[in-house]
């Protein structure tokens, strides 16, 4: 039964996912392409590309699309596929959520304790490093273009990057407005 399998596989993917959507992709690929053969590797690559260019967490995007495609491939009509998509997405969320409930309860109860304060006091600087690392790793050819192959795109990307950085940092432009502005700029310039 495809629905039970979707629920089981995506629950597993949700609970074994540490460190965000990208780490999840290899897990999903292994289960969905290799083990269950719900789709081909080419279809999976398309899904990853689509997930990156639509709003929302990449893990949820992937789960929704996989749920839909797997049910369609099993020969069911569209409405059943929509159900499969929603089921797969919720399956990813529910186990980590239950875990989060107990962790949050503990932290809210003990947040004045010296030990908890001291642990989080060290962890806050780590988070700064974590975000810096994420930004550094995203400064790639995929996001900025390459200076040798497409100097025009590269220079424009740097300008957009600086504009977005200065705009949100110094002029307090709302990040959502900034995304819309940069998207519009891309549409008009390229």
């Amino acid at each position: 039964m495809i629905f039970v399998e979707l629920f089981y596989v995506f629950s597993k993917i949700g609970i074994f996912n540490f460190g965000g959507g990208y780490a999840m992709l290899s897990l999903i690929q292994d289960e969905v392409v290799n083990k269950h053969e719900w789709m081909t590797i080419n279809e999976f690559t398309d899904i990853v590309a689509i997930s990156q260019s639509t709003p929302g967490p990449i893990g949820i995007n992937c789960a929704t699309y996989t749920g839909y495609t797997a049910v369609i491939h099993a020969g069911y009509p569209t409405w059943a596929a929509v159900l499969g998509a929603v089921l797969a997405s919720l399956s990813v969320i529910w186990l980590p959520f239950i875990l989060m409930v107990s962790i949050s309860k503990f932290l809210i109860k003990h947040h004045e304790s010296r030990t908890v304060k001291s642990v989080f006091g060290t962890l806050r600087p780590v988070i700064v490093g974590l975000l810096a690392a994420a930004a550094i790793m995203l400064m790639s050819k995929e996001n900025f273009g390459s200076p040798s192959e497409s100097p025009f795109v590269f220079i424009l990307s740097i300008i957009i990057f600086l504009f977005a950085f200065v705009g949100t940092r110094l002029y307090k432009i709302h990040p959502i407005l900034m995304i819309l502005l940069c998207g519009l700029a891309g549409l008009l310039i390229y």
Partner: protein
Amino acid sequence: MGIYTDIFLTFAKIGSFTLGGGYAMVQIMEKEVVDKKQWLSHEEFMDTLVVAQSTPGLFAIDMASHIGLKLKGVRGGIVGALATALPSIVAILLIAIFFQTFRENIYVEKVFMGVRPCVVALILAPCFSMAKKAKLNKRNWWIPVITALLISAFGMSPIWCILAAGIGGFIYGRVKK
């Protein structure tokens, strides 16, 4: 407006504009939940980041669950988590059903060529405001530098950095006492 409606609308908005993964959402979420709604202080927001990063599940969903739980218990958490996931589920379903050729659309690609560098800037920007709130000084500035280096240059998983720093903080707290 009821608090649940408020939680739902806020996180649905955040979910709608999370492009390119969980980290891109940090600044939008900080603006909405800390500056505008004042549901959390800056320090509490950073602690939420720590918790979301070190527990299984999706970063953005974990953040929303934790903040929802803090505001209104389990029901608040469920509303927050579902609201963050909803825009993504709807968008993907529409694409899956109607626009199989979404990726090949030239205009979509143009928009994203503008959005991608912007997203990188949005991830980098909160580092500077957070550095102040994390009380970085002469004694602990090396912590974020080493962390960033280990992760970006040596491909270390952030989990290990959090674990090491957590244990370090725990021991430090004990010794100081």
